[in-house]
């Protein structure tokens, strides 16, 4: 099953991107978390109950409770995490964020919002 996981605190972004994923028939299932902490708990709970890791994660950077960078530190502790295609999805065009993202091997690409249908289609090719 193809699962896409969206970790973002902005409800309007989540709403539009989920809608877009559905319209584009991009995957079988979308899971949404409001911040890094919820995501780590959710993913671990899913794995413990025999579920599988998502194929794609869209990760925001600036979030309350646990931000994107902090989430990444936890996420790489999960065995098999490398099978996930993780994308940073943020509205930040801050250079230091872009530079920082290059230090993580797990990050496949740095996507600047808005996420359009064109970007979504290209994601599946990567």
């Amino acid at each position, binding site marked *: 099953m193809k699962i896409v996981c969206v970790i973002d605190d*902005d409800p*309007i*972004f989540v*709403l*539009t*991107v989920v*809608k*877009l994923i559905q*319209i584009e028939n991009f995957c079988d299932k979308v899971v949404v978390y409001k911040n890094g902490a919820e995501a780590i708990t959710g993913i671990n709970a899913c794995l413990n109950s025999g579920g599988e890791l998502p194929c794609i994660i869209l990760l925001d950077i*600036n979030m309350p409770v646990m931000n994107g960078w902090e989430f990444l530190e936890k996420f790489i502790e999960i065995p098999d995490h490398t099978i996930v295609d993780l994308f940073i999805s943020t*509205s*930040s*065009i*801050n250079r230091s964020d872009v530079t920082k993202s290059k230090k993580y091997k797990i990050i496949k690409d740095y996507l*600047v*919002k*808005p*996420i*359009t*249908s064109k970007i979504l289609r290209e994601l599946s090719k990567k």
Partner: protein
Amino acid sequence: MDYEDKRIEELLSYQILNSSTEDELDDITEMASLICDFPISLITLLDDKVQWIKSKKGIEIENNDVKDSFCKHTLDKPDDIFVVENAAIDPLFKDNPIVQNSPNINFYAGVPLVSKNGFVLGTLCVLDHKPRTITENQKKTLQILAKKAMQFLTTRKLLLNQRNEINTNALRLKKLTDNVPGGIFQLKMAIDGSLSFEFISKGMLKLHPSVTMEQWMENPEIGFSLIHPNDLDDFKIKLMESFEKLTLLSIKYRVKKGKSYVWHLMKGNPERMHDGSVIWYGNFQNINDRVEYEIAMEQIAFDISHVLRRPIANLIGLTELLDKKYTFTDNQILEYVGYIKTVSLEMETFTRDLDEIYRLKKEKITGYGKDFYNKRLK
């Protein structure tokens, strides 16, 4: 200005009237006496009132009134030697006090001392108590000696002017360095790593009110105790790096000022000495406003890239969804329009707040309130 005024001005420019005796001039009068065989020899300089005796040989005589002098008769004849062979019978001089009374002068021969601009400043003269004559060779000798005396006066004037200029320049330089904002320094590091200030300007007192100039001169390392502990290692590393590789010194660091810390910048140009030591020429300055400004600019950039871009991205996302190639029910469309409105209002509030936030930042950095700018705009 007539000829006499110009002559006096020229004479004064030699700065010699009130000065003490000069060995070089004494040698010349001595030679004039010995070579030409006259008991008395003088070098005199004449202003409008006084005949100044700059050197005397064979006579005790003080500066005297110019109107009684023999020498005044040379002033308008720069090319001639003025000779009086027997003053006692000369209608011009027979009533002169120095002829009538002691020292009872009877013979006078004066060679004018002529400046480069052609003014007679005074004379080299020989005198005798008895009437006599002077030979052509004696005249020639006196002319050569007068030329020597004039050369000495010219050189002396040149040296004095140069010294004055150096003094003026040194004074000006000191005033400049003392009044430049920040501290100008010449800092030396010996090969054993010990530091010493070869020069430091008074601006340091303003930068570090708790340290006296004497303390800085005694031990520059007193500065280390003022630097923020988190910046001290970096400071020392950069100083050593500049010492070893002669890289330009440019260190940003925080120093204690009262209870808080302010940002300072040290800049210096290193130069290696023969003994292996390094001397930096540079300055310390307070860059706190600049750093606060940089932080504010970064904050603005951050606000724009993070906060403002988020609703913009959402707006684009929403309108992309509403693109005509998808089909939505009327209710769905209404829902999305509602979101667009929410996002627009979010942007409206943010941009409204921005103005206020940046105004407060600007006030904090510059120390000037709203009134200051309003007044300037009027």
